[in-house]
């Protein structure tokens, strides 16, 4: 039943011809110029490591989580990074729940190549005990609305989420120096990940006439285009990955596209960094507010406490208790796990 229902959205021949003819005169159906990117807006969620990116009508969410694993045998000093793309059925009537199609796998592979093989994320800093314990970073990419060009939006979401993600600080200690102590966030600040550079994916669409190239295609244009190239570049001018499919295109056009990609990547990198800066400064402000209430409470005596101070101290006490609840459980389970693996 699902396969039949998936065919419900199809462009008519008239619409397809309209898009192609308009492109020959460099007119796109949403009014953009051929090499104009849509507006990007980046928003962050409540927890560290969650970002939502809106690229025109396309909406993608990136969520980063981490846990302890044993490292691979051939790379005992490096952590791991895995990407899980989820093409939610809410994004497009043709996306099925459960098994993801080949475009989901392709999206995951492109982002993976951009982040891991270009060494954008420093995996050696994710090692805690060489050969035994490393951080495994998991990036979930949730596609909420398919307005075209999912790869670019998903890439930006993954980068924004990675830049705002924090791992708790760990150190070695204990009797034999082999126990791992995880410091709860109120004692030591959690650490950000080390990113050497930001690989940005830029998608180009090629149409039947060789000279017709557009950047950032919308879903109507994607249904009509004959070929596609996704260039992952960074603001330094390095090409991290290129993926091309569809009709053959001349070398001159490819070189033009790569030049353009590097310029666009610089703009997008600036935008991502500005959004992350704003989020970090807001987060720092919130932390300062919490700490001033702590300090205020300890200075006052405990006999003549006004209702306000008592209320604040109770709130702070409960906040500490809450953090302890979360961190003590994870601390205890991690110690147990490490002791078991040692025996």
């Amino acid at each position: 039943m699902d396969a039949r229902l998936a065919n419900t959205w199809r462009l008519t021949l008239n619409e397809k011809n309209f898009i192609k003819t308009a492109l020959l005169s460099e007119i796109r159906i949403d009014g953009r110029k051929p090499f104009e990117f849509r507006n990007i807006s980046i928003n962050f969620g409540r927890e560290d490591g969650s970002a939502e990116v809106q690229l025109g009508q396309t909406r993608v969410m990136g969520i980063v989580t981490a846990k302890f694993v044993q490292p691979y045998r051939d790379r005992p000093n490096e952590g791991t990074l895995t990407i899980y793309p989820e093409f939610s059925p809410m994004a497009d009537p043709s996306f099925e729940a459960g098994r993801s199609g080949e475009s989901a796998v392709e999206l995951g592979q492109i982002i993976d190549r951009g982040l891991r093989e270009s060494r954008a994320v420093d995996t050696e800093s994710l090692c805690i005990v060489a050969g035994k314990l490393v951080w495994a970073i998991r990036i979930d990419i949730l596609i909420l609305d398919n307005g075209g060009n999912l790869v670019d939006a998903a890439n930006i979401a993954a980068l924004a989420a990675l830049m705002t993600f924090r791992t708790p600080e760990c150190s070695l200690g204990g009797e034999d120096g082999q126990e791992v102590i995880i410091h709860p966030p109120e004692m030591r600040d959690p650490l950000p990940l080390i990113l050497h550079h930001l690989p940005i994916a830029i998608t180009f669409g090629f149409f039947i006439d060789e000279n017709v190239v557009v950047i950032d295609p919308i879903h109507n244009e994607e249904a009509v285009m004959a070929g596609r190239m996704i260039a992952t570049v960074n603001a330094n001018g390095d090409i991290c990955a290129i993926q091309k499919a569809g009709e053959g295109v001349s070398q001159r056009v490819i070189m033009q596209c790569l030049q353009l990609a590097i310029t666009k990547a610089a703009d997008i990198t600036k935008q991502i960094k500005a959004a992350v800066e704003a989020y970090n400064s807001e987060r720092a402000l919130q932390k300062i507010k919490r700490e001033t209430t702590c300090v205020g409470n300890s200075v006052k005596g405990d006999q003549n406490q006004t209702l306000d101070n008592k209320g604040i101290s109770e709130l702070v006490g409960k906040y500490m208790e809450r953090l302890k609840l979360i961190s003590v459980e994870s601390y205890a389970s991690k110690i147990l796990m490490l002791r078991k693996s040692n025996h």
Partner: protein
Amino acid sequence: MEVDREDGRSQNQLRPLACSRNILHRAHGSASWSQGDTKVLAAVYGPKAGTKKNENPEKACIEVIWKPKTGQIGKPEKEYEMILKRTLESVCILTVNPNTTTSIIVQVVNDDGALLPSAINAACMALVDAGIPMKHLAVAICCCVAKSGYVILDPTKLEEQKMKAFAYLVFPNSVHSVLPEGSLRVEGEPIENGIITSVTHGIMSVDDYFYCLERGRAASVKLSDFLRRNLQQQSTDSSKAG
């Protein structure tokens, strides 16, 4: 008995509610619902032709897909899907479009307690946005019973974990109608005194449960008002645009 809750709310106070409709462009109907830090996104596609194999083709069929924030789909997600499906089947008018399927996709954006009630509220708003015919709305709320016996509404995740028992309750919303008073009553009671769904976790005494129902019903009146205001405001906005 005054109870100190972590965020300073009183026993019967709900977290700040926020709701917006028509946020996705491809879906036929969509809504985002947040209660404090819990945020849920719902999208509706439908009605589509055909029903699934074991469903009755003389009625419309509702399909629910629950997507957690991270991780794979397991048994808790399947349970939520089933509860949502049964709740929404009793709220929608299934005889208007027979032999069709309406899909509702729920995405958890953040879970800070009272997840299933938020999802039910979001799904109802998304159905309204899609224009699916319904008898009335479903208004969902979560009530917890603590070890010392007091009842609090709309817990956060930490509060849920510390409580002895909690219940998710779904009531029909209050009806404003032009029909004469008596015709909308079911067996002499107004519709909003009924209960559509109730899911409990943990042990609670019968008295505690009835107390929860009472408190939940009172809160559902407030929620219905919020929904009504939200829907009316957005419908006048869209008429200005059109």
